[in-house]
């Protein structure tokens, strides 16, 4: 489903972010990418969203090279991939409801569907009572749950979560990971980057370990070993 083919990213100042990275992800998998800060986890994720271009190599999503998609067709790809970021990245001038509705509107979904799905998905992340709050009226954990709701509302094939627990306390971290697990159980592929040992060890899923831009381990039922 997702295939990284010998991907390297070298910046203009010759610093290496990724070096000869190859791996594939099957549908329904839950893959964690671990490594120290600067190991290349975020760059890896940005490649899949075509937010960054590889220096050499290619990234395929459902057999399509994502870096050959023209800019005006990029929306189609990105709507198949739900994204969650460490810093939540909600639209500050929109309420929780509108943030999620925006993703649906961008996908051209009809109004009735939005009116029924948004409350439902907010219920799912346990935020039914915060539907009309603006992001700055929500705690970090709540904001991240809104972001997850936004990521799943269009029923994407993959959820990419880049350090989603990086800014959260242990309780919220646990909740966010539980939500991701639940989504995975329903059949959605998940790619999670993190440097949280506790999260990885409790998941008991596939772990790709990175160090200085290279994949150094790829374990079927891995632990956090660095």
């Amino acid at each position, binding site marked *: 489903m997702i295939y990284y083919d010998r991907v390297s990213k070298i910046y203009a100042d010759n610093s290496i972010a990724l070096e000869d990275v190859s791996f594939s992800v099957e549908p329904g998998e839950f893959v964690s990418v671990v490594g120290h800060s600067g190991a290349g986890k975020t760059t890896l994720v940005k490649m899949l969203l075509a937010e960054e271009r590889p220096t050499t190599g290619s990234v395929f999503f459902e057999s399509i090279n994502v870096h050959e998609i023209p*800019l005006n067709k990029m929306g189609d790809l990105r709507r198949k991939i739900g994204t969650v970021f460490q810093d939540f*990245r909600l*639209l500050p001038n*929109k309420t929780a409801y509108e943030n999620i509705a*925006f*993703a649906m509107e*961008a996908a051209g979904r009809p109004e009735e569907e939005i009116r029924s799905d948004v409350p439902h998905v907010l219920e799912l992340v346990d935020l039914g009572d915060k539907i009309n709050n603006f992001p700055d009226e929500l705690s970090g954990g709540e904001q991240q749950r809104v972001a997850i709701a936004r990521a799943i509302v269009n029923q994407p094939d993959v959820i990419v979560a880049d350090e989603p627990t990086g800014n959260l306390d242990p309780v919220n971290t646990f909740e966010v990971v539980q939500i991701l697990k639940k989504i995975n159980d329903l059949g959605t592929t998940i790619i999670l980057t993190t440097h949280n040992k506790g999260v990885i060890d409790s998941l008991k899923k596939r772990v790709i370990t990175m160090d200085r831009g290279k994949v150094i381990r790829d374990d079927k039922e891995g632990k956090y070993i660095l």
Partner: protein
Amino acid sequence: MKWLTTKRILRAGVLDFSRNAFVSFASILVMTVTLFTVGVTLFAGVILNSALIELRDKADVNVYFTTNAPEEQILQMKTSLEALPEVAQVEYLSRDEALAQFRERHKNDQLTLSALDELSDNPLGAVLNVKAKDLSQYEAIAAFLQDQQAASTGGASIIDKINFFDEQHRAALDRLESITASAQRLGLIVVILLIVTTLAISFNTLRLAIYTSRDEIQVMRLVGAGAFYIRAPFMVEGVLYGLIAGIVTLLLFYPLTWWLGGVTGNFFGGVNIFSYYLSNFLYFFLIIIGTGVLLGAIASFLAVRRYLKI
């Protein structure tokens, strides 16, 4: 474009406009200044033009006839002058009228009047006062008169003097011509400079307003929104700024021109800018509102573009 998308874009634009109230307020303020400048230059152009027309209208050429020139020949010359395309107006002043005018002008000068009374006959000849359509055409008219003089009578000319050939009169005409021409040129340069500057300031303000939203634009992009769907609400916002700033400007001009109307009317002669504003309101409406709306839309369109490149 589908009605649903249009509705969503309009709603998003209006919501952003009201939720970013302070940014909206600041942008409208700057745009109002811009549109006000545009309006003021329009008015200044009107005032300058009417003042220049008034000034140019003061120029003329007088043809003085000899005292014994037969009236019918003078009238004949008047007719042929009026036939010239360059001539706007010819006024005939008979000998008696010229004398009456002379007496009127010197009514406080007893010495001159008594000297005039000493004369047995009216010493003044008849006069044709010629106004050209344009300052530059006096030369041609004077040449025409000179030809007439040479051809028609063959020696005994009825024309005593044409004041165009007076050094002083001619110099005054030339100077009037160059002053009005350079005033118009200077006016145009000032207008262009002012308008370009103030448009640039407005443009930059909108760019800064959108700069504050650059992260949002990226998020929208990553959530899978198309470029148009992201950009259009910003353009709606820009158009709203322009529309409101335009209405504020038009409202401001109402008391302002009313207040200035009397003053400028007396000072520059001719136009009262208040009545000019009212009678040309549609023209002002289209220019001011049109400038505002276009400026808002184009500036937003361009400002968003740079953040859409991912």
